[in-house]
C-alpha cells in the first residue's frame, strides 16, 4: 500500500485543491495516467500518477485546499514508488561571516565611538577610566554612561544627573564620574600596596646645579625626574604598564604616563604624556607644564585623556608624606610620590639627614605581584640615584 500525495509542480506552489477526481476506488491505474484535476494559483492542472496499481481509497475529498505533500489517495500496487518521504535536507547554510576586515594595527589610538565621546564630554567622564565593551575594547556610549554611574536610560530618567550646563553642573557630573570610577576600581581591582623611601640627595643636588645653568623658564622640577624614572623603570617591570582587559594583561603600546592633576574647581584628571621613556627631560618638563595648563582650562586632547598606560600621582606639594592611591581602570598600576622631606638617614655607618621622598606603588595583583612590584620601586629608586642619566 502506498500513498499518493499532492505533487509539487513548482518552486512557488504551496498548495492545491482537488477539483475533480478522474479515478474511483477499484480503478486500475498505470504510470502516467491522469488521476485528478487540481486547481492552483496559476490555473487547473491535471496531475498524473507515477506508479502502476489499483486505487484503494480516495482520502482527500474534492474541493479542499491542501498543502503540497498531503496524502490524497491510497494505492495498492505492484511497484512501490520510490521512497518519497525522506527528503534529504540540504546542508544548513551557515550565516556567511562578514569579510575579514582590514583592521589596521593598533595605533595606540583609543577606540571610542563618536557618540561615546559626546556623552563623555556631556557627563564629564574621563575616557581613560572607561573600559570599552566593544570589539577590541571599543568604547560605546553605554560604557561611558556606566562609568559615570548611570544606567543607559530606558525611560526619561531624572536620575541621570544634572544636564551639562553650568560649571557647577559639570563639576558635579565630574565628581559623580570620578566617584563611580573609583568605586568600580576598588570593587574590581585587587590592589596591593608597596612603599619605599628614596634618597633624593643626588637628584636634588643635580637638579640645583642644572637649574643654575638654565633660564627660569626652562628650570626643571623634581617631579619631572620622578616621572621619567617611573617611565624608565617600566622597562624592567613591563607588567606595570598597560591594561587589564577581558581577563588578560595587555601591555601598553608605549609608555604613556598619566599625570594626576587636581583642578582648581575640584576634581582630578590624569591626562597622559606620550612616550615619556623616550623624552628628554626638557621636553618632559615642558609637556607637564603645558598639560597642567590645558587640564586646568579644560582643553585636553582626546588622546591625552584616554591613552595613559600608567599613572603617577604627586601629592608632595600638599604636604602628604605617603600616598597609596587607587588605580585608574583599566590601568594596572599607580605610582605615588609624597612630599620631599628632610629625614634622618643612615648610610655608611653614619647618621645624617637627606632629602627623602616616599614612593609608593598601588598594583593590580592580577597583573603583577609584590615581588615584581618591589623590583619596580627598586628600579625607580636606582634611576633617581643617577639623575644625569634620566
Amino acid at each position, binding site marked *: 500500500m502506498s500513498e499518493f500525495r499532492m*505533487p*509539487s*509542480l*513548482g*518552486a*512557488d*506552489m504551496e498548495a492545491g485543491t482537488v477539483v475533480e477526481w478522474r479515478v474511483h476506488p477499484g480503478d486500475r491505474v498505470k504510470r*502516467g495516467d491522469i488521476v485528478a484535476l487540481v486547481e*492552483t494559483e*496559476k*490555473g*487547473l*492542472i491535471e*496531475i*498524473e500518477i*507515477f506508479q502502476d496499481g489499483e486505487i484503494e481509497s480516495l482520502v482527500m475529498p474534492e474541493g479542499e485546499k491542501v498543502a*503540497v*505533500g498531503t496524502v490524497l489517495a491510497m494505492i495498492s500496487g505492484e511497484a512501490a514508488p*520510490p521512497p*518519497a518521504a525522506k*527528503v*534529504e535536507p*540540504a*546542508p544548513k*547554510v*551557515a550565516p*556567511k561571516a562578514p569579510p575579514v576586515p582590514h583592521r589596521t594595527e593598533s595605533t595606540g589610538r583609543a577606540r571610542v565611538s563618536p557618540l561615546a565621546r559626546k556623552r563623555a564630554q556631556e557627563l564629564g567622564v574621563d575616557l581613560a577610566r572607561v573600559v570599552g565593551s566593544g570589539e577590541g575594547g571599543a568604547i560605546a556610549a553605554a560604557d561611558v554612561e556606566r562609568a559615570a554611574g548611570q544606567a543607559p536610560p530606558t525611560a526619561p530618567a531624572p536620575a541621570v544627573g544634572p544636564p551639562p550646563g553650568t560649571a557647577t553642573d559639570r563639576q558635579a557630573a565630574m565628581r559623580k564620574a570620578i566617584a563611580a570610577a573609583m568605586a568600580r576600581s576598588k570593587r574590581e581591582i585587587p590592589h596591593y600596596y608597596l612603599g619605599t623611601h628614596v634618597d633624593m640627595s643626588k637628584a636634588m643636588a643635580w637638579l640645583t646645579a642644572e637649574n643654575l645653568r638654565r633660564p627660569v623658564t626652562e628650570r626643571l622640577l623634581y617631579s619631572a625626574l620622578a616621572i621619567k624614572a617611573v617611565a624608565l623603570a617600566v622597562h624592567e617591570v613591563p607588567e606595570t604598564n598597560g591594561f587589564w582587559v577581558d581577563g588578560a594583561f595587555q601591555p601598553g603600546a608605549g609608555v604613556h604616563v598619566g599625570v594626576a592633576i587636581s583642578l582648581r574647581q575640584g576634581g582630578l584628571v590624569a591626562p597622559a604624556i606620550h612616550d615619556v621613556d623616550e623624552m628628554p627631560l626638557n621636553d618632559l618638563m615642558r609637556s607637564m607644564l603645558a598639560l597642567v595648563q590645558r587640564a586646568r582650562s579644560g582643553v585636553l586632547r582626546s588622546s591625552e585623556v584616554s591613552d595613559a598606560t600608567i599613572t603617577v600621582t604627586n601629592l608632595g606639594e600638599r604636604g602628604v608624606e605617603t600616598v597609596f592611591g587607587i588605580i585608574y581602570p583599566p590601568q594596572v598600576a599607580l605610582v605615588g610620590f609624597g612630599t620631599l622631606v628632610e629625614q634622618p638617614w643612615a648610610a655608611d655607618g653614619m647618621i645624617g639627614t637627606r632629602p627623602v621622598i616616599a614612593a609608593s606603588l598601588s598594583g593590580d595583583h592580577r597583573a603583577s605581584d609584590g615581588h615584581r612590584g618591589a623590583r619596580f620601586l627598586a628600579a625607580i629608586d636606582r634611576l633617581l640615584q643617577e639623575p644625569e642619566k634620566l
Partner: protein
Amino acid sequence: MSDEGAAPRAIDRDHALLLLRQMIRIRRFEEKSAELYSDGKIRGFLHLYIGQEAVAAGAMQALRPEDAVVATYREHGHALVRGVSAGAIMAELYGKVEGCSRGRGGSMHLFDAATRFYGGNAIVGGGLPLAVGLALADKIQGHPRLTACFFGEGAVAEGEFHESMNLAALWQLPVLFCCENNLYAMGTALARSESETDLCLKASSFEMPAWPVDGMDVIACETATRRAAESVRTGGGPHFVEFRTYRYRAHSMFDPELYRDKAEVEEWKERDPIPAFAARAKQDGLLQDEDAAAIEDEVGVEIAKSVEFAEAGTWEPVEDLTRFAYSERPAGR
C-alpha cells in the same frame, strides 16, 4: 531551398537501434524527472523535452566530437545524446556536487567541457551570440569544426537572434542554427508574436541557406542536419534548419496550459516520434518487437542507476560557495 521531400539516407539495423534507444532514453529520463520534481527532489524550473525527442536524437548524429553545442533550458535530451551521462545530469538536477555543473546550474544550466556542451542557457536567445563567438574562434584559429546552436522559435522575436544571424552570415561563420519550432514560446503562440511566421524566410533574408524539416521524423531530422552540417563544414557559411515539432507537456512543470487546446495536443500525440519510428523500422525489417522491449529494460536500468547516483550524491560544502566566481588557475593556453 526546402528539402522536405528529400529521400532519407538508407539506414541499417544498428543505426535504427541507436536512434530508437536515444529517443527512448530521453523520453524515460524526462518522465522520471517529472516524477522526481513532483516529489520535491528536483527544484527550480523543469522544462521537459517530451515529444521533441526526434530532433535531438536525429540532429546530433550529424555532429562530431570536436564540434560545439549550445542549447537552451530545455536541453536534457541534447545533453544525453551528446554524451553527458544520465547520472551526471540527474545529479545536477538534484543539485549535487557530482552533477555536471557541480550543482551550480540545475536543470537549465547543464555544461560539460568534455563534450563541448556550452549550456544550458536560460535567457531566450542568449545562447546565439555565444555560438557565433565559438564559430568565430574556430574560423580565426582555423579549426575545421562547427557550432550547433539549438533554440526555440521564441528566440526569433529577440533582437539577439537577428543580430547573431546577421553577424554569422556577414562573416560566414560555421554556425548551424537549429530552430526547434514547437509553436509556443511558453504560452505565446508563434502566430501571436511574429508578423511573419515563416521562419525559413526570415533566415534566408540574411542570405543564409534555410529549410524546414518534419521534427517528428527522426530520420528526416538526421538527414536534414547532415546535409546542412556538410555544407557548413565545406565553407558554405552558416545554415538554418527549422525543425517543426511539438512538446506534449507544458512549458514547465507549473503550467496549466491555458493557451492551447487539448485537442491539438492529442492530434500531435498521434505523431509521437517514438512509436512512429519503431513502427516504420519494423515495417522496413530493421527492428523486431523484442528490440523495443529490450531497449526499454536497459534504459530503465540506466535511468534507475542515474537516480541512485543522484540520491547517493553529496552536497557541495557551503565553504566552497565563492569558488569559481573567478578562475582558480590561468585559462589554458
